[in-house]
């Protein structure tokens, strides 16, 4: 587990991530209430048993988060999901992939 | 007297070509004109009248004159209406129309000439008129294509002149009827006449002049492609085919059939409506030459059928292309989408014209049908004709593909809905006239050939009732639904297959040139 600052996210992940060695599992969000959102970028190592590398940070819902899709293409799905389900803003990521206009808004937020 | 006049005007004409060469600073034209002048002078000096007449109106000539005057006349009349839409000064429009008529007159003379020297004169005159007509719009591209047409056709003229000189040199007649009667002697000169015909017929590698001609106002294309100019090619081959030796006849057939296939293939990759029509013309023209070169009674009839019905169908199609251009502002086939809803009669006319080129029960189809039957007979005695069969059946199928590829665009109503426009009757009148003329000719054909009668009656009836139903039945009582779009709200873009044969064009060219050379070698 490694805590990172949201501003440093891109540098941290760029310096850490090597596609041949690390497997990006997903970006997990967890609403802790009181406008605090815990974000976890979960990585594992190929060919190593049960070895996780998790970057985490706590941010607020007002911030515009950076996207790591440029580094890891498959991250777009996770990011689009938390945009839809939590109502977070992520740079360059559009919502609407999982929910449409008639769906509830940000259903996984604790209290709105 | 006539002879003197023709000789005199020919000199004037060649001098004019020389002047054009100077005007456009084209050294090739100057050289060609100079060589032609020298050869022509030589020919004039050595020429002596024999007993034969200078003009003979035989069956073939009458047949050609029917086509030239009826189809060409219809086009010239259509030209009057067309020029109303053309952006040019009044006097130029008038001159244009005069050119058209003069062109027709020249063609009439060309098909009845019996003297090769006279024929050369009219041949050069058609070159001149096509040059002037293509140049009509006087912009850069028109001038360029006109010069190209002039240049290539002058090469044709040169070949003709060489043939005349060779014949004179070896003390042989230059009267066509005498040449044809003298079956024992096959002159190498003959091959030059045939080559001249090939160039007039825009065979590969000389097709660029006919393709370039589409920059001119559409009546010119219509005239060039259907009734005049290019028809000289099969006409000449038909005239001389009786004296071809077996090898020459076979090689010409092979070359023609090969080009029939190749041009159809190349047409598939094109985008402009007129260009596609042009490719289909040279494709069918090669077929006509191929059929004509076989030189038997059956092939003669088939070639005539091809020439006749092709002239009518192509005239109608080109006239439609002109209407599309002027009235609907459509040049590329991509823009033709939705025409069926915008102008149903015109779209149907184009569609039916396509059918007349490829499908039963129309004339061109019957010609192809008879040809297959005839080929089946030929191959029994000569297995080499298998190549002809291969190119022919594949080429015909590809032409069907070519036409109905375009037809698809007429029918689909996607993308840009066009504003409905009604074509004035006076604009399509010529097309309808030609269409009726064609139907009458088919009826005549069917009455003379009893074995196709039931077949054509059945399918003719089907065709007529189809067209009638398309106008009559609207099925208003049935519920209309929208199409299946996989759950999508909007229908995406609908497009066509496209084919790209550019990269093979080079190889096609090599094969064609190789066949020319073989032909030339064999004839020597």
């Amino acid at each position: 587990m490694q805590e990172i600052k949201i501003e440093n996210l891109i540098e941290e992940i760029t310096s850490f991530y090597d596609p041949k060695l690390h497997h990006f599992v997903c970006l997990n969000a967890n609403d802790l209430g009181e406008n605090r959102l815990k974000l976890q970028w979960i990585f594992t190592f190929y060919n190593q048993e049960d070895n996780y590398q998790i970057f985490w940070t706590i941010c607020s819902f007002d911030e515009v988060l950076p996207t790591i899709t440029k580094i890891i293409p498959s991250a777009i799905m996770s990011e689009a999901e938390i945009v839809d389900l939590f109502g977070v803003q992520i740079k360059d990521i559009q919502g609407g992939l999982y929910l449409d206009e008639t769906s509830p808004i940000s259903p996984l937020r604790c209290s709105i | 007297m006539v002879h003197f006049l023709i000789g005199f005007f020919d000199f004037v004409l060649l001098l004019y070509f020389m002047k054009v060469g100077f005007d456009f600073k084209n050294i090739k034209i100057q050289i060609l004109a100079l060589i032609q002048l020298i050869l022509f002078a030589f020919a004039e000096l050595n020429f002596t009248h024999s007993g034969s007449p200078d003009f003979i109106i035989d069956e073939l000539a009458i047949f050609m004159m029917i086509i030239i005057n009826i189809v060409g006349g219809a086009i010239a009349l259509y030209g009057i209406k067309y020029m109303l839409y053309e952006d040019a000064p009044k006097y130029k429009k008038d001159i244009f129309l005069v050119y058209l008529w003069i062109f027709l007159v020249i063609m009439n003379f060309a098909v009845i000439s019996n003297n090769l020297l006279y024929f050369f004169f009219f041949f050069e005159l058609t070159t001149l008129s096509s040059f002037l007509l293509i140049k009509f719009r006087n912009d850069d591209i028109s001038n360029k294509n006109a010069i190209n047409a002039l240049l290539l056709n002058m090469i044709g003229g040169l070949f003709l002149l060489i043939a005349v000189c060779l014949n004179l040199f070896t003390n042989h007649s230059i009267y066509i009827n005498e040449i044809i009667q003298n079956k024992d002697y096959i002159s190498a000169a003959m091959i030059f006449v045939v080559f001249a015909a090939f160039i007039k017929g825009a065979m590969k590698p000389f097709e660029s002049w006919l393709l370039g001609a589409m920059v001119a106002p559409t009546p010119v294309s219509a005239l060039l492609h259907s009734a005049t100019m290019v028809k000289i090619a099969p006409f000449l081959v038909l005239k001389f085919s009786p004296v071809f030796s077996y090898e020459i006849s076979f090689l010409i057939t092979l070359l023609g059939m090969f080009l029939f296939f190749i041009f159809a293939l190349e047409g598939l990759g094109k985008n402009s409506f007129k260009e596609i029509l042009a490719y289909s013309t040279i494709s069918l023209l090669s077929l006509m030459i191929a059929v004509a070169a076989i030189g038997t009674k059956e092939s003669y009839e088939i070639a005539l059928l091809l020439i006749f019905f092709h002239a009518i169908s192509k005239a109608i199609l080109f006239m439609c292309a002109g209407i599309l251009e002027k009235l609907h502002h459509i040049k590329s086939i991509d823009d033709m989408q939705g025409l069926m809803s915008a102008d149903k009669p015109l779209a149907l006319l184009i569609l039916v014209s396509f059918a007349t080129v490829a499908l039963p029960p129309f004339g061109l189809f019957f010609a192809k049908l008879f040809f297959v039957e005839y080929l089946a007979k030929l191959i029994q005695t000569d297995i080499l004709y298998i190549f002809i069969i291969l190119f022919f059946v594949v080429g015909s199928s590809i032409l069907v593909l070519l036409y109905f590829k375009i037809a698809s665009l007429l029918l689909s109503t996607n993308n840009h809905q066009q504003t409905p426009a009604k074509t004035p009757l006076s604009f399509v009148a010529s097309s309808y006239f030609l269409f009726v003329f064609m139907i009458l000719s088919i009826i005549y054909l069917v009455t003379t050939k009893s074995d196709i009668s039931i077949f054509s009656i059945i399918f003719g009836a089907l065709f007529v009732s189809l067209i009638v139903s398309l106008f009559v039945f609207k099925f208003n009582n049935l519920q209309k639904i929208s199409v299946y779009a996989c759950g999508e709200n909007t229908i995406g873009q609908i497009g066509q297959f496209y084919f790209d044969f550019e990269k093979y064009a080079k190889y096609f060219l090599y094969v064609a040139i190789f066949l020319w050379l073989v032909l030339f070698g064999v004839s020597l």
Partner: protein
Amino acid sequence: MKKTITIPLGSQHISLLEPVRFNFSCENEKITDVDYNVGFVHRGIEKACTEKFEYKQVGYVVARVCGLCAITHTMAYTLGIEHILNIKTNKKIDYLRILMLELDRIHSHLLCLAHTAENSGFEGMFMKIMGDRELVMDIQEAISGNRVQFDFVCIGGVNRDISTECEKLAFTNLALLDKKVDDLIGKFTSNWSTALKYKNIGALSYDDAFNFNALGPLARAAGAAIDVRAESSILPYKEVGYKMILGQNGDIYDRNLVRLKEIKNSILMCQNILSGLTEGEILVKFKGKPNGESFTRLEAPRGEIFYYLNANGTNMLQRVRIKTPTFSQIPGMVEIFKGSDYADAPAILASFDPCMSCTAK
């Protein structure tokens, strides 16, 4: 003359098993660009797991995420919650769990192969594989009592023990299936039309497999040794004879072969388990309420499945996060589609074995 045609594949296309929408921009049926949408069946399962159901029930809820890997979802959740509750299971339970997982893998792979065949216009093969699949479904039914939603695994163990008749049936059916799979391998490798349809079609390169985070058979067909079974010690896979199967070219052909060979490997594992089963309890008693978080990865038939659980000492979980195999592979799929023919698209899609109800949850 370049012309773009847009062809929709979905959301109601005949060759789709699940609602997904791809919109292909094609030139001459050659795909140049792909637009996708996956969220047609969002059911809010993650929300339901934390608000409607207690942690003991969640295992049965997440089984409803997906019909095919139902057992894997329950298993991943169970393993996660057992980690939080600190429950240690015995060998027999582990073996029975692997047995069901591998039977499920056989069943899922066979279904995928059948659909790949069907989508490439090979109806005869589809019927044949679907027929063969009955053998493994019979075993699953005999063991768990259900054909689709097994609900076999529960927190602390499994719900049913395996009987001797069951074992006998399993042995005969597996032996039969083994022969049939050999036969299928022959059919998939030596058919002219399938070679045209599968070889070098929809290929994913070795590097792209890593770049796009490919998983499961998709990655292994490209030669990338990516398999959670080899990277996790949570279930004793090494003991039962697990072997990594790798392909080379990453095309449909290789994917099919990898699946077929994995089926053979799974059959072997099942046979090993069945012959090595010991007597023992099938349920471990446990007490207390979960508190803490856990990360669990498991190899579903389609690739890695990941569960994040966060419990706060009550009967309700605070957060359940499900990450399914198809979820992260969609950008990779889009990449594969580009440059292929539309005519191949349905077969390529089926060979990914996508699961949209997993993805949208």
